[in-house]
């Protein structure tokens, strides 16, 4: 080997000029790599949903092009957003975290933390998702829940926000005093389990527990988690905590547990002021009028609610025991548009809609000139204009990122008087994050949620017969002599007929109500399923459970916050805990939780039965695991149930819930949040057991300092 000495010198000029070709030569592989990574993450989920719907359920996907476009937007959005996080938001958070302990007192840091926690809750619209899901909650079946999701929904958000704010404060104090996360977890978990068990004694509170636990899982979205994590890591390093190198974790855990207590506490506060659950008929009686007043802002909106949610019988009871009083009231409505507004809300023609859908025939005839205006409202579909789509989602993205980014910048530049490191990267990162999140949200709305809704609605067809409302059909020139009769075991007769469609003879049940003898048309809604009629659809239920597992698994792999967490964990453990292992452990846990959630909805098992035992097991596992894994495990669970998982799981839950007919379909998310902790802690224990290049004999007695 010849050795030659060459001096190492470099041109000292500032910038290197890059040619056009070189520019693309650098940009394209980089962009390709990022987009490729995200495609892999989302692909599993998408293929799975599509294959499941088309092959197993055998139902074609509606609006295929729109959905495909939406999925492309999700992939693109994820790539941009994740890159934006890594380049801009997280370094910003880390720098603020590094400077805070040096230049600000503890109380100022805590105040900042509280504002951050509160702001993050308002910035991210996850709560809104729960509200839309809560639209199906009936005021008489779950009054407290109805109140907190409707009239007092802002109190719910405040409670959650305060919960998160205090969580950040607790988490920061923990860093300063170098306390272990374990006591926090154990005390909080015992407290929450205790509150949940105690809530069993009040039916109102019992119905609230589902959403309380769901709130805990839903807070801390894809922007907050990486930000709070980076902040925590920075603060830990600056404070010099002597704990393991995964200092900085733990805030997310607390932000997932405290809001549950806050919501349950809120429920406790309002408990005395709301009536107990009752039947629909009882709800309309004069005696309870005082008590139910609190559930509605005005008397008129109460009337509107009764009219839209209940049938004519209940309306009669409400308005005063006779058909006359009902007709009188409807007449007064028809004559006073202002009254209509107060009753039905600002949506135009709401009254007309009501007449058409709920009004008795004589009512509609008397009020509308022609009986055919019904057609106008029958098949109305909401068309969201394209520009509205972009604008809406962009506003959501801006609302989620900019306030937090501004807060950090202001704190860094003015209060801490420090420079923003690599300013151009940070600003570019924020910009990427905004674009990414907008596209991501658009894609979720047009692609994933649509797909999820379709699958969610069709899913029960695996074990039950469900009507396909979209395929409502009218048969002309219906010859009633074709209708045949079958007899049931109890002697009742069922009538049916055959329809020839697509070279197949399909059996349709015949209901004389849908037959119009004047026009000789038969209008009906075809139904599908059950796919597996064996043993009351047991196999079908099993299929749905398995579906739930893979839905949770696949959706979690696509979550951006989990990706960001995985990257940080791998970096902090210097490669010992690989990102791949973490994401797959978490995903299996979520899958398990989702599957159990399906079981909960289908068989109406009380949530506590499925939720509390794993928490008790977790207390033991937490005690025996190393601090490092405890922090990572509990934080990963807070990270799941994000913008990808929540809509899909909710859609599935709603579809199932409606088919099965439960009061409330919440709780699946809560289950999907607890089981990943179990899986990660178990994996951690496994690694703990395996590791150890130095077997115990070498470690002398005095050397073990934990």
């Amino acid at each position: 080997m010849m050795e030659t000495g060459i001096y190492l010198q470099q041109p000292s000029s500032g910038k290197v000029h890059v040619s056009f070709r070189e520019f693309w030569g650098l940009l394209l592989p980089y962009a390709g790599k990022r987009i490729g990574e995200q495609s892999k993450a989302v692909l599993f989920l998408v293929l799975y949903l599509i294959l499941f719907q088309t092959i197993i359920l055998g139902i074609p996907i509606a609006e295929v092009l729109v959905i495909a476009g939406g999925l492309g937007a999700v992939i693109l959005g994820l790539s941009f957003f994740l890159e934006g996080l890594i380049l801009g938001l997280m370094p910003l958070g880390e720098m603020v975290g590094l400077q805070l302990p040096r230049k600000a007192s503890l109380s100022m840091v805590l105040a900042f933390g509280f504002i951050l926690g509160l702001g993050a809750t308002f910035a991210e619209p996850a709560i809104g998702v729960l509200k839309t899901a809560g639209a199906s909650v009936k005021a008489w079946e779950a009054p407290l829940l109805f109140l907190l999701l409707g009239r007092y929904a802002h109190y719910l958000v405040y409670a959650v926000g305060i919960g998160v704010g205090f969580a950040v404060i607790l988490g920061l104090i923990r860093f300063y005093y170098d306390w272990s996360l374990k006591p926090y977890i154990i005390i909080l978990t015992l407290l929450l389990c205790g509150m949940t068990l105690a809530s069993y004694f009040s039916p109102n509170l019992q119905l609230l527990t589902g959403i309380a636990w769901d709130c805990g899982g839903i807070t801390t979205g894809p922007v907050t988690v990486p930000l709070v994590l980076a902040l925590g890591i920075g603060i830990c390093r600056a404070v010099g905590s002597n704990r393991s190198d995964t200092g900085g974790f733990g805030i997310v855990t607390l932000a997932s547990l405290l809001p549950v207590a806050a919501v349950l506490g809120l429920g406790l506060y309002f408990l005395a002021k709301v009536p107990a659950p009752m039947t629909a008929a009882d709800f309309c009686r004069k005696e309870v009028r005082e008590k139910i007043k609190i559930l509605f802002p005005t008397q008129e909106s109460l009337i509107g609610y009764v009219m839209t949610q209940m049938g004519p019988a209940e309306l009669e009871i409400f308005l005063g025991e006779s058909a006359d009083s009902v007709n009188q009231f409807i007449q007064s409505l028809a004559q006073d548009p202002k009254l209509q507004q107060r009753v039905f809300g600002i949506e135009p023609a709401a009254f007309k809609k009501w007449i058409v859908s709920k009004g008795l025939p004589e009512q509609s005839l008397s009020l509308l000139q022609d009986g055919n205006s019904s057609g106008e409202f029958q098949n109305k579909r909401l068309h969201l204009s394209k520009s509205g789509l972009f604008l809406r989602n962009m506003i959501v993205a801006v609302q989620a990122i900019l306030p937090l980014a501004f807060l950090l910048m202001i704190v860094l530049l003015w209060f801490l008087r420090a420079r923003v490191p690599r300013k151009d990267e940070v600003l570019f990162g924020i910009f990427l994050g905004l674009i990414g999140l907008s596209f991501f949200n658009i894609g979720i709305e047009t692609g994933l949620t649509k797909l999820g809704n379709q699958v969610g609605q069709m899913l029960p067809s695996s074990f039950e017969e469900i009507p396909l409302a979209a395929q409502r059909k009218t048969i002309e020139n219906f010859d009633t002599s074709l209708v045949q009769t079958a007899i049931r075991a109890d002697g009742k007769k069922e009538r049916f007929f055959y329809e020839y469609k697509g070279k197949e003879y399909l059996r349709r049940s015949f209901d004389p109500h849908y037959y119009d003898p004047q026009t000789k048309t038969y209008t009906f809604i075809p139904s599908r399923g059950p796919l597996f009629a064996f043993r009351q659809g047991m196999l079908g239920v099993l299929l749905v459970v398995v579906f739930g597992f893979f839905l949770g698994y696949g959706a979690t792999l696509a979550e951006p916050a989990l990706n960001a967490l995985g990257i940080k964990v791998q970096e902090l453990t210097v490669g010992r805990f690989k990102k791949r292992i973490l994401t797959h452990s978490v995903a299996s846990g979520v899958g398990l939780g989702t599957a159990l959630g399906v079981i909960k909805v289908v068989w109406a098992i009380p949530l506590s039965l499925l939720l509390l035992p794993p928490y008790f097991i977790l207390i033991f596992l937490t005690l025996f695991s190393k601090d490092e894994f405890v922090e990572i495990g509990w934080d990963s669970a807070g990270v799941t149930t994000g913008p990808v998982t929540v809509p899909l799981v909710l859609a599935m839950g709603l579809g199932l819930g409606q088919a099965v007919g439960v009061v409330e379909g919440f709780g699946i998310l809560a289950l999907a949040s607890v089981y990943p902790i179990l899986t990660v802690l178990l994996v951690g224990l496994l690694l703990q057991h395996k590791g150890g290049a130095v077997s115990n004999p070498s470690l002398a007695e005095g050397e073990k300092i934990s």
Partner: protein
Amino acid sequence: MKIISRISIFLLRELTPFLILQLKNSGLTDLQITSGRMNTFQQKKGVRNFFSSEPDLGSDALDVITILVDPTIEDSVLYFIVQTMKLKIQGRGSIFSERVRMIKGHSLCRVNSTFMKKAESTGIFSGLMGITCIVQRDEGDRLAQVILNTGTCVPALYYGLGTGLRDKLGLLRITIPAEKEILQLVARQEEADEVMELMIEQGNLDQPGKGFIYLYQIEKGLINTRTHRDPPPHIATLEQVVAELDHLKGNLRWRLHNVEGSSEVSEPRYYLKQLVEFRLTCNEGYGAELVKEAMSAGVAGATIFKTKHHFADSSSQMQISPAREVCNMIISENLLENVIRILEIKRAFEDEIAAIVEARSVDKACTYLVNKK
């Protein structure tokens, strides 16, 4: 400017708290800890062994502890650590010392000058060389495996960020990954050249963008050579026997070990010489900017890694921030003065940044060279 001794210890994370405690009780006031990992071979158990008997690579948490001491106490500190941590028992860690020039530093960057314990000279040898290698992230394990296969030592690996050409590209720099992995190892003088050659070959370190490797002198040290995790069914492990023989013989030269490199060398290897490893340690967050300034003075680039500064709890004194970072630059000797001057202009040695710079000569280095003469 003065000559000091820099002691580095690669230690299993489980053992670190004990060592820190012992050192503080003995009068040391400041040290630095960088988180890292070490890999060792692990036999596959049970069914997996059936498919392929090649051993797995298992990783453990490792700490790289750096202590700056006055040369007069170097021996005491070394012997004390070896004795207390029982480093002679293979598998627990390595330790070595280097002579470096401390050029300038903030007043709070102290060099330890008192040590209260005395220990008998045991198990420390001279005739060692150090190798540091910087590669792309996720490439480290492969190189570590190559090193482990030679049986010379167990390297320490930790993460860092690279700066250099990419910082001259403006915003386009985000398309070039900056994440790096740093491997550090100690080998006997006789083997060092061959190990370095093997690493260059296996890691393609002479290709563009693949990495950087350099070799330097070490005063004295003790190497952990336990490359396999599972103790074989003998009374003593081979490493223990070797260690005892080292001690009996008093040196490492008796080991006639041959490192297998490639039999052919197609092209002559060009090494860079007359270089200096310039180490700048400062408060976290300021390194990148300082390196940028240094680059304007002609420095090619740097590798920055995070470290934590530990100090004894003397609450009366002002302390340095625990969050620190180390910027490692390989430069020619003649650039040194300029760089120091630029750092002074940038107030690197004042309270906000609190930097300290050390320099140490490098025997030879290898990387991709643009023009080979």
